[in-house]
């Protein structure tokens, strides 16, 4: 399908591009697939039309936004990929799994397509107030933490920490819908706007002053793409770090790691999620939490903070395999983590938790390295 290039060149201000190649040079997937965003921008600039369907590698992009962060000319290369995906979505030429994720979100409010009525099942008997009754802090759980059995314990750990700190908080229960961060990045702008409208109305009706998310992906879209009139948007690492700093959340002992007999010291390395670190520059709070946990020794991987390596779980990649299944970035990443000598690879993102844990299994590192969310470590030390 031939796309007229000029309107999108104007809309995305691609004329600022000087073809320096910093975007493709830093693109983690460009090293393993044919995706070349610099070249795509050039084609947009010099060709009257682009055959978008001839570029299946558009679905390789993880929307880590390293290109956006690094571009010296403030071009936003990843936004071109999102825009081109939008063309494919409009014409229906999308991978089946992406279609299913979008349809599931449209019908059930979550990309797995699981029933909306089961959305609050993650609480597993714990008493959590309905935010609709009014609360100071709105906890936006979102899809992965609501439905994925591996991530549900993270949400429960957060609830226990909120309770321990005596916070007045609530959730939207089964009325909560997907935040839409991934939906937008898969190019389905119409569905994204619908989700923004629904969620915004619901969130505003609660009247909370702060909103906290499990996932950096939800945090990113609430903070940068919604307009929630002065409401403070927090990722949980910011809130937990604040509670520790204020002395409202206290640890009583080193974390009791499952499978270990005695409590004691544990060496932890931390993987910066792209949507938290690179895109929103939150590097210190997760580390502050880890350093505050008794018995935790934090060691850094060589590639950390702004140079963290993407786990390949973002930008719709949880629902699309991409064009190179063999060389997963998560494989490389878990080896980097293991090389530090850490026993625990701590993450602060549900997608990172899933992709990296899977990689540890596939790479046979299970005996050496355990992937845990920061909240799981916190929970074990309260």
């Amino acid at each position: 399908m031939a796309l007229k290039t000029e309107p999108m060149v104007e809309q995305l201000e691609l004329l600022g591009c000087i073809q320096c190649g910093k975007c493709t040079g830093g693109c983690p997937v460009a090293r393993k697939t044919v995706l070349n965003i610099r070249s795509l921008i050039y084609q947009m600039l010099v060709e009257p039309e682009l055959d978008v369907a001839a570029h299946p590698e558009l679905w390789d992009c993880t929307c880590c936004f390293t290109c956006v962060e690094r571009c010296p000319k403030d071009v936003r290369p990843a936004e071109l990929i999102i825009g081109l995906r939008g063309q494919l979505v409009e014409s229906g030429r999308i991978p089946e799994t992406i279609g299913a994720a979008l349809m599931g979100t449209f019908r059930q409010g979550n990309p797995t397509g699981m029933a909306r009525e089961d959305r609050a099942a993650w609480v597993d008997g714990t008493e959590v107030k309905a935010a609709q009754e009014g609360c100071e802090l709105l906890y936006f759980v979102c899809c992965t933490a609501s439905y994925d059995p591996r991530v549900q314990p993270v949400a429960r750990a957060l609830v226990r920490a909120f309770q321990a700190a005596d916070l007045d908080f609530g959730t939207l229960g089964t009325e909560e819908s997907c935040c839409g961060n991934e939906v937008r990045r898969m190019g389905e702008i119409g569905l994204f706007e619908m989700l923004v409208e629904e969620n915004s109305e619901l969130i505003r009706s609660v009247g909370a002053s702060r909103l906290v998310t499990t996932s950096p992906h939800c945090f990113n879209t609430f903070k940068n793409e919604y307009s929630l009139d002065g409401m403070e948007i927090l990722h949980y690492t910011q809130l937990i770090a604040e509670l520790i700093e204020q002395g409202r959340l206290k640890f009583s002992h080193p974390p009791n790691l499952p499978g270990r007999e005695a409590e004691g010291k544990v060496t932890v390395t931390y993987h910066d999620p792209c949507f938290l670190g690179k895109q929103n520059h939150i590097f210190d709070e997760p580390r502050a939490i880890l350093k505050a946990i008794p018995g935790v020794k934090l060691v850094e991987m060589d590639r950390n903070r702004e140079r963290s390596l993407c786990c390949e779980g973002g930008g719709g990649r949880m629902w699309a395999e991409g064009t190179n299944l063999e060389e997963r970035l998560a494989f490389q990443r878990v080896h980097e983590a293991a090389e530090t000598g850490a026993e625990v690879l701590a993450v602060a993102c549900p997608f990172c938790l899933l992709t990296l844990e899977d990689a540890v299994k596939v790479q046979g590192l299970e005996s050496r390295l355990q992937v845990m969310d920061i909240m799981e470590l916190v929970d074990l030390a309260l």
Partner: protein
Amino acid sequence: MVEEVVTRKSAALVIGGGIAGIQAALDIADAGYPVYLVEREPSIGGRMAQLDKTFPTLDCSSCILTPKMVDVGRHPNIELMTYSEVVSVTPPGPPSYPPHGGGGAFRVRVRKKPRYVDVNKCTGCGLCAAACRMKGRVVSRFDEGIAKRSAIYVPFPQAVPLKYTVDPTACLYLTRGKCGKTFLCQDACPAGAIDFEQQEEFVDLEVGAVIVATGYDLIDPRTKPEFGYGVYPEVMTGIEFERLSSASGPTMGEITVNGKRPKDVVFIKCVGSRDPHTGVPYCSRVCCMYTAKHAHLVRDKIPDARITVFYMDVRAFGKGYEEFYDRVRHERVIYRRGEPAEIYRKKARDGQQGDKLVVLAEDTLLGKPIEVEADLVVLATAIVPRTDVLEVAAMFSSLGGLECSPDGFFQEAHPKLRPVDTLLDGVFLAGCCQGPKDIPDTVAQAKAAASSALRVLTQCQEAVPA
């Protein structure tokens, strides 16, 4: 009866003792007018004194600069005020005011910082520095942190004046109130020059013209965290490379990293420059050529090195510059088009020695992502306005203030037709304080500023009773 009068010539003030200030001061002084040259560091020389060779002729920088510095030091018409800062430039005082200088449009207040050394007694022998308890423990800013010095020091051996200065941020006595039982520097000084009782002094001058030649800073490469500056010792800036490569530098010109000669050397241009993202939208103008010069120096000293220069564009616009770029490529310096995106350390695999740095980039001409190993990476960091540019501008506030252009450098009166004037009559600009430029352009602008200043000075001679 007719009262006998003589004319007294008006003086000029030059602020900043780098090559711009030195050249402007010499030209005015040679024309027969008095000059006050004020430099905040203990020595004149500025950035040019730090450089190894100069492009494209490969003259040794200090060999061509030092004679000019010496000329300044002994010129009868130049009063050199080093380790001093201009506090304010204001309209002239009342007639009863007894100024130094010869009258004119400006009264200038200068703060002379205490050196804690009597410059009239100090012979520059260096016995004090050799005796100092902090010897080898104080980071040398002149050597960009590559070498350590004592708390009493001259920044470099060719310093003008060759007088020692006590660093108030490093001296044990000045920072902690105590330095052993006796002052080792005082004990060592045969001239009895060290005087911890020295206080700062204020001197008032009256001058007819002012030349601002306050120079530039370099961007902190940590603003581009992807390059790992400050994380990896193998990643350094261009100015650090100058000190490393300089025959009079801390390694006597031997290029070593972690005690070893680098085999794979990578240069990255435009680090921070041409980058609105870092607040430096402009081209820094000198990096293309000094990077070519650095590559040549590496080739000269390490004949078997693999040298890669990453570039976005090559801007070789001056006399002899394109020819130099041609020469360097023929010396097996490989230019690859693409701005690197990241540097990380790759673990050594079996059979490889040591962990190497890897530079990630796209070779845009190949259209493919590449990884280039490196033992040394040199970042061509952007030229930026000095951090105190607004304070310098504010020194002129009672005259209406000095303007800055949107890039943060001082604003000339007209970008084409009045390139050295400011909007303040009698105040002129020279060198990189007006915008990035190389040495030839800096010297040309300094000479133009001197000429403009002389035009004013010839008109403001005042008659004084004989």
